[in-house]
C-alpha cells in the first residue's frame, strides 16, 4: 500500500503533480481547480489499481496491480494525429493501359516515396486499439502547387524520373499519393501497453520511468521486470505515447536491477539488488537506448536508492546513510570511469529524491516518517546546508517513498496560490493548515515531486512592490500643501531660463524621402520637444517631436531606427528620416526617449485595429489623429529677379467653397496695372486685373489656352500710391472680391472653372503685397487624418487581426500569441496584463570535408573547394565564432550542436556524403563519395515582456481569422 506520486514537466512553464492514494486511484493537483484543496481525480474512465507511476508532459505511465504498464493520455485541444502516406504505382502496357501489373524490376504496387519500401495497404495498420482512422484513403490532389486531375496521377517516363501532372506520349508509368490520418482516440482512460511476451504473466513489470531526451521531442521510457531485466520502449513521443516495441537491454551478467530511473537529460540508470549503480552511455538521437552500461562505484554500504537531477546525484545506501556525488553528474557520465567520489550527508534517511533542476531535494527520514527538505541549496552550495522539516503538520505514512522529483521552475511568479497540501487519500473537502508562519493571503508555491510527498512550501512574494493606499494619502497631502503655499504669490527664486537643456549624441542621418545618402552629425533633443540634427556648422535639420508619427526599428541589429514625420508641405506624404547610432545602447535609449515623448494622448488619437509588423519583428498599433488646420499667416516669398511675378504662393488646400484670402497691398505711384490670379495647374480660375490706365478692373478666366470673356463693369476703387485691403472669398457660385478702404467695393465673378482645382495664388504687375492671410475652408471638412503608430513590445513575424478587435500573432518559432489588451483602452500598458514573451531563432552552419587517401576526411579541401565552414550554398564563409546574436535582446539557449534534421538524411554522426560539393547528398557513404558535410545549429532566444499570452501546445505555420456574423469566430490554421 504505497503511496507514490508522479509529476510532469514540460517545456513551458506549467508543472503538474499526480498522486496515488491507498485505493489505487490517481489524483492530480491543479492549483487553479475549484476544489478546496486543489486535488482532483484523474479523469479516467476505467478504474485500475495503480501502484507506481511516472509522467511527462501530461501523459502518465503507470504500473497497476496486475504489473502491466498502462498509459493515460489526457484530452487536449490539439488532437494527436499521424498521417500515413503511400504511393500507388502503375505501369502502362498496351493491353490494359495503366494497371497494377508492373515489371519484376519495378517498385511494388504500393510503396513509399523512394519506392524501396513496400507499403501495401494491408501493412499499414492501426498500431493499437487506441487509434482510429479518421477517414478512408484520400488522394492528394496537388503536385508542385498545381491541381491535378481528379484521380491525382502524376506521369513519368520511368519510375525514378521527373513526374509531371500531364500525361505525355512517352509516359510509361504513373503514380499517385494517398493518405489518411489516424487519430488517437483513447483519451482519458488507461490503455494497456503490450507486455514483453504474449503472456503477460511471464515477466511482469515492477518499475517504470520516463524522461525526455534533452530538449527533443522523443521520450525515453525504461522499465524493470520482475526478473530484474531492463527493457526500453522505442519511439515514444507525444505523437506516439504508446511507443512501438520493447527492446530488451542487456545488463552485465549476474546483476539484477531493482530500480530504474532516468536522469533529467534522458540518461537511464539502474540500481541493482547488490547495490551497484550503472548508467547507460552512447545515447544519440538515433539510438536512444544507448550502447553500454558503465558502473560507478557507490559509497560503502551498497546503494539502495538513487535519484539523479541534472548535475547532482543523491543516494541512500542500505545502512540508511545519505550520500551525494561530489563532482557533477555530467563529469562522471562523460569520463566513464568507475571511480566516483561520494560525500556523506548527515541524516538517517529512508529514501530521497531530487528535482530535475537540482534545486529541491526531499527525503523521508527514517524514524518518524517525517519529510525533510534540504535547505540552503545555492549555486555555490550545491548540496545545501541542512535538513529542515518540510511539513510539520502533515503526517506521512512511513511507507511513503520519495522516488523522483522533477522540475520546479514552474514557479515563475504566476504560480501564486494559497492552497494547502494534503495526503491525497483523504476526501477532497479536507482543509489543511499550512505550516506555521503562513498567514492568509500569503503566497504558496508548490513543489512538484514524483515520489511520495508533495509540499506546499511558502515562498516569498515574487511580485513587484505593490502600491498601497499610502500612496494616495501621501499624494493628497502633498497636493493640499501645494495649495496652501500657492496663495503666496511671491516671485520665484529660480527662474526657468529660456535656454533649454539638451542631450545629444553622434549619429548618422539618412533622409529617405529626399533620397539622400547618409550624413554624419550630431543629433540633439532640446527642451524635450525639438529634434535637431546638426549636419555641419550651419546646416541643421529640425523637427518637432510632436510631429513624429512613428518610430520604427530598421532591422534586427537594433542600431538604427526610422522616424516618420508629419510633413506639412507635401500633402499626404510623411517625411522618413533614419538615424544610425554607434551602438545598440544609444539607439535604444534615444528610441525610447522619442517614443515616450511622441506618444499621443488618448483623446487626440483614435486607435484603430490596424497593426504594423516590421522586418525587425516589431509590432506597432496604428491609429489616426486629426490635425486641425488653423489659418496661417503665409510668408512673403520674394520672387526671382527678372520675373514680373511679384508674389507666388501655393494654396495647399486649394481654394474651395468657404475659403478666404486676405491681402494688404500698396500701389506704387507709377503703377499702371497689376493682377491677382488664382491658378490651377494650367488654367486660371480667376484673374483679377485692375488697370489704372483705363480705370477698370478686368476679371477673367483662362482655360484650355484661351482667355474667356472679360468682365469690366463696376466702380474702380484703386488710386495710385494708396494702400488697400482686399478680401477674396469663394462662395458656392462666385468669387467675391471685397476691396476695403473707407468703403467696401464688391466684385462678384461667377465660377467658370471649378475652384477646387486651384493650387496657387500669384500677384503680378505693379503692386506690392504687404501681408497675406489664407483661411482654408472649414477645417472639419478638410481635416487630415495622419497615420501614426505606437510600438508595442513583442517580436513576431506574422500578425492577423479580426474586425472584432482580436489579434493573434505568430512568432519565428511558430508559437501562437494572443493580444491581451482591448485596443480601445488606454495605450499605457497595465502591468498586470503583461507577461513574458519569447521567440526563438535557429542559426545554421555547414561543416564541409573532403576525403583524401592519406588522412580520410579532413577539412582541408581542394583550392577550389568551399571553405570548411559555410552556409548552405557554400559561397559564404560562416565560422561558428562569426555568428553573432542579432541584438543584445537575444540570448543563446544552446551551444553549437550537430543537427540531425537534414532532409536527405544523415548518418549517425550527422554526416551526409556526396560525390562533390554541389551534388545530391545522401546519408550512406558510397565508393565514389569524396566529400561530406554536416550541419550545426544553435538556438537563440529573445525575451521581453508584453501584453501577449501564449497559446499552449500548438505550433503553426500560418494563421488567419475570419469573423462570422460577429457572433462566432473561426480560426483557419494550417498545422505543421
Amino acid at each position, binding site marked *: 500500500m504505497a503511496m507514490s506520486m508522479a509529476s510532469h514537466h514540460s517545456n513551458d512553464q506549467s508543472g503538474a503533480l499526480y498522486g496515488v492514494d491507498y485505493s489505487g486511484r490517481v489524483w492530480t493537483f491543479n492549483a487553479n481547480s475549484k476544489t478546496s484543496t486543489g486535488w482532483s481525480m484523474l479523469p479516467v474512465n476505467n478504474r485500475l489499481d495503480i501502484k507506481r507511476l511516472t509522467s511527462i508532459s501530461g501523459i502518465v505511465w503507470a504500473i497497476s496491480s496486475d504489473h502491466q504498464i498502462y498509459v493515460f493520455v489526457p484530452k487536449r485541444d490539439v488532437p494527436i494525429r499521424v498521417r500515413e502516406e503511400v504511393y500507388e504505382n502503375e505501369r502502362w502496357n498496351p493491353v490494359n493501359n495503366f494497371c497494377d501489373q508492373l515489371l519484376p524490376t519495378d517498385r511494388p504496387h504500393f510503396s513509399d516515396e523512394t519506392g524501396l519500401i513496400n507499403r501495401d495497404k494491408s501493412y499499414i495498420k492501426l498500431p493499437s486499439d487506441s487509434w482510429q482512422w479518421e477517414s478512408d484513403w484520400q488522394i492528394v490532389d496537388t503536385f508542385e502547387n498545381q491541381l491535378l486531375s481528379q484521380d491525382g496521377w502524376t506521369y513519368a517516363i520511368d519510375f525514378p524520373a521527373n513526374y509531371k501532372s500531364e500525361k505525355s506520349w512517352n509516359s510509361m508509368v504513373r503514380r499517385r499519393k494517398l493518405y489518411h490520418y489516424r487519430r488517437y482516440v483513447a483519451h482519458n482512460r488507461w490503455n494497456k501497453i503490450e507486455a514483453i511476451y504474449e503472456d503477460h504473466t511471464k515477466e511482469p513489470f515492477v518499475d517504470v520511468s520516463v524522461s525526455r531526451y534533452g530538449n527533443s521531442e522523443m521520450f525515453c521510457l525504461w522499465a524493470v521486470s520482475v526478473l530484474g531485466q531492463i527493457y526500453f520502449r522505442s519511439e515514444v513521443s507525444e505523437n506516439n505515447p504508446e511507443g512501438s516495441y520493447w527492446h530488451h537491454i542487456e545488463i552485465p551478467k549476474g546483476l539484477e536491477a531493482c530500480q530504474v530511473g532516468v536522469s533529467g537529460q534522458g540518461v537511464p540508470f539502474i540500481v541493482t539488488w547488490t547495490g551497484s549503480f550503472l548508467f547507460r552511455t552512447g545515447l544519440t538521437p538515433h539510438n536512444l537506448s544507448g550502447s553500454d552500461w558503465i558502473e560507478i562505484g557507490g559509497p560503502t554500504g551498497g546503494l539502495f536508492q538513487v535519484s539523479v537531477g541534472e548535475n547532482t546525484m543523491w543516494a541512500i545506501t542500505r545502512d540508511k546513510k545519505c550520500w551525494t556525488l561530489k563532482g557533477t553528474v555530467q563529469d562522471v557520465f562523460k569520463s566513464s570511469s568507475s571511480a566516483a567520489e561520494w560525500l556523506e550527508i548527515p541524516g538517517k534517511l529512508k529514501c530521497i529524491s531530487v528535482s530535475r533542476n537540482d534545486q529541491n531535494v526531499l527525503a523521508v527520514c527514517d524514524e518518524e516518517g517525517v519529510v525533510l*527538505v534540504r535547505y540552503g541549496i545555492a549555486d555555490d552550495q550545491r548540496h545545501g546546508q541542512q535538513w529542515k522539516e518540510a511539513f510539520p503538520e502533515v503526517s506521512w505514512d512511513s511507507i511513503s517513498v520519495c522516488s523522483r522529483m522533477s522540475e520546479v521552475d514552474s514557479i515563475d511568479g504566476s504560480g501564486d496560490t494559497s492552497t494547502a497540501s494534503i495526503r491525497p487519500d483523504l476526501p477532497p473537502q479536507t482543509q489543511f493548515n499550512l505550516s506555521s508562519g503562513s498567514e492568509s493571503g500569503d503566497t504558496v508555491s508548490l513543489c512538484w515531486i514524483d515520489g511520495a510527498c508533495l509540499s506546499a512550501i511558502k515562498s516569498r*512574494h515574487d511580485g513587484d*512592490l505593490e502600491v*498601497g493606499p499610502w500612496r494616495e494619502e501621501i499624494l493628497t497631502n*502633498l497636493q493640499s500643501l*501645494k495649495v496652501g*503655499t500657492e496663495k*503666496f*504669490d511671491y516671485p520665484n527664486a529660480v527662474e526657468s531660463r529660456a535656454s533649454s*537643456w539638451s542631450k545629444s549624441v553622434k549619429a548618422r542621418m539618412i533622409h529617405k524621402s529626399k533620397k539622400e545618402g547618409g550624413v554624419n552629425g550630431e543629433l540633439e533633443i532640446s527642451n524635450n520637444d525639438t529634434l535637431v540634427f546638426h549636419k555641419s556648422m550651419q546646416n541643421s535639420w529640425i523637427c518637432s517631436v510632436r510631429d513624429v508619427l512613428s518610430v520604427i526599428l530598421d532591422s534586427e541589429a537594433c542600431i538604427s531606427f526610422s522616424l516618420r514625420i508629419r510633413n506639412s508641405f507635401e500633402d499626404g506624404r510623411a517625411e522618413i528620416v533614419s538615424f544610425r547610432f554607434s551602438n545598440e545602447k544609444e539607439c535604444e535609449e534615444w528610441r525610447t526617449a522619442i517614443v515616450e515623448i511622441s506618444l499621443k494622448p488618448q483623446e487626440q488619437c483614435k486607435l484603430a485595429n490596424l497593426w504594423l509588423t516590421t522586418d525587425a519583428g516589431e509590432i506597432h498599433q496604428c491609429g489616426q489623429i486629426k490635425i486641425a488646420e488653423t489659418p496661417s499667416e503665409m510668408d512673403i516669398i520674394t520672387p526671382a529677379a527678372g520675373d514680373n511675378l511679384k508674389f507666388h504662393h501655393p494654396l495647399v488646400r486649394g481654394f474651395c467653397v468657404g475659403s478666404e484670402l486676405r491681402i494688404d497691398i500698396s500701389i506704387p505711384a507709377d503703377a499702371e496695372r497689376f493682377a491677382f490670379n488664382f491658378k490651377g495647374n494650367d488654367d486660371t480660375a480667376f484673374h483679377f486685373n485692375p488697370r489704372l490706365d483705363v480705370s477698370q478692373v478686368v476679371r477673367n478666366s483662362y482655360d484650355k489656352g484661351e482667355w474667356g470673356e472679360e468682365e469690366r463693369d463696376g466702380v474702380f476703387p484703386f488710386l495710385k500710391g494708396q494702400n488697400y485691403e482686399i478680401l477674396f472669398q469663394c462662395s458656392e457660385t462666385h468669387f467675391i472680391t471685397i476691396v476695403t478702404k473707407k468703403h467696401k467695393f464688391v466684385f462678384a465673378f461667377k465660377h467658370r472653372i471649378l475652384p477646387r482645382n486651384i493650387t496657387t495664388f500669384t500677384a503680378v504687375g505693379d503692386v506690392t503685397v504687404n501681408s497675406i492671410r489664407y483661411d482654408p475652408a472649414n477645417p472639419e471638412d478638410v481635416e487630415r487624418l495622419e497615420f501614426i503608430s505606437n510600438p508595442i513590445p513583442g517580436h513576431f513575424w506574422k500578425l492577423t487581426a479580426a474586425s472584432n478587435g482580436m489579434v493573434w500573432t505568430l512568432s519565428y518559432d511558430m508559437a501562437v500569441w494572443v493580444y491581451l489588451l482591448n485596443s480601445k483602452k488606454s495605450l499605457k500598458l497595465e502591468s498586470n496584463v503583461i507577461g513574458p514573451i519569447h521567440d526563438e531563432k535557429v542559426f545554421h552552419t555547414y561543416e564541409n570535408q573532403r576525403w583524401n587517401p592519406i588522412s580520410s576526411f579532413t577539412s582541408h579541401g581542394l583550392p577550389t573547394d568551399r571553405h570548411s565552414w559555410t552556409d548552405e550554398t557554400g559561397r559564404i564563409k560562416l565560422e561558428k565564432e562569426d555568428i553573432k546574436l542579432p541584438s543584445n535582446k537575444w540570448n543563446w539557449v544552446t551551444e553549437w550542436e550537430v543537427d540531425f534534421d537534414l532532409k536527405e538524411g544523415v548518418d549517425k554522426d550527422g554526416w551526409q556524403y556526396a560525390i562533390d560539393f554541389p551534388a545530391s547528398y545522401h546519408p550512406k557513404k558510397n565508393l565514389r563519395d569524396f566529400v561530406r558535410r554536416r550541419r550545426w545549429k544553435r538556438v537563440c532566444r529573445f525575451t521581453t515582456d508584453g501584453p501577449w499570452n501564449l497559446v499552449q501546445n500548438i505550433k503553426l505555420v500560418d494563421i488567419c481569422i475570419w469573423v462570422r456574423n460577429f457572433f462566432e469566430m473561426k480560426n483557419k490554421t494550417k498545422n505543421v
Partner: protein
Amino acid sequence: MSLFTQRPANRKGQKRIRMAEDREVLREIWEARLPVSFQLAQDEVATLNVPEPFYLMVPRLLYFPLVTDKVRKHFIQYVSPEASGREIWLSDGNGQPIKWNYPIGLWFDLFAEGALPWTVTVHFDGYPEDKIMRCSCKDTVRSQFMSYLKEADALKHKGNVMNCMQEKDHNQLWQGFQNDKFDQFWSANKKLMESVVGEGFRHIPIKCYTPEKLAMQRIVKPIDETTGTWTTLHDALLEFFPTIDFSTVRVIIHGVEPPLGTPVQWLSEHMSYPDNFLHLSVLPSTPGFSYFSTPSLSSPSTESGSRVSPNSSS
C-alpha cells in the same frame, strides 16, 4: 530556484527592472515651494531707510546658497561698506544659524513648525564659523551634492551606477537640479533609481533628524530578511530609535507625514531628495497642533483670490 531563498529571476537570468515610475508624485515633490520672507538683521542696518523684507518662493529641494543671490543684491545697499563684501549667513526664527548644507525643505520641517511665510534673517556680519561651514561659491554646494549622490549610490548599487555614468551625466544631474529642470534631472536620475523587481536596492540611503540631534544614519534594507516582506517606514524607524513610541512622534518629509506602513523602497525611489537620500524629520507630536491650520493660512474656500503682495522693489 531553491525554495527557501530569494525570488527567482526569469528564465536565463534575465531580470525585470523596476524604477521610480510614479511621475505624479515625483512632480509634486519637485514643484514644492516655500514662501520665504527674508529680512535683514536689525542690528546690521546701516542706512536710514529700513529695508523691506524680500519675498521669494523657494524650492524645497534646493540649498540656500543657490537662491540667495537676489537676496544679497537686495540687501547689500543697506549694510555698512565693510560688511558688504562678506558672505551672508541666515538664521531662522529661533535665532539658530541655518546650515546651508541642509536642503531648505528639511530645515523648515525640522525647525520652523510649519509657520508660513517662513521668516529668515539675513546677516552679513559675524559669520558663526563654529556652527556652520563657509560656502564661498556654488561649487562647494555642487561638490557636496555629488558626494551625497555617490554615497547614496554606494548604498544602493555598490557605486556601480555612478561610476558608469559619464561626466556629462553628472553635469546633467547638477544642472537639472540647480536650474529646476525636472526632465533634465530625472532623465539622468532614473538610472540611479533602478533595481531588480522583487529585490529593491541593496540598502536604503536614509538619514533621520530630530530637533535635538541632527543627522543620524543607520543601515536599512528594503526587504526584511526574516519575514520576506518589504520593510516599512515603521520598521526603518525602529532601526534608528529602538524604543520609539509612535504615538508621541511625527515623521515628516517634504512637509507631509507618510503613513508608517509605506515601504521604504518606494519612499526611497520617489520621495528622496535630489541627492538620493531620504532625509526624515522626526518631531514630537504636540496634541492639538494641526500642521495645516497655522494663522497665516486659512481654508481655501474663504481666501479666494486674495494674495499676499509681492516685493515692492524689483
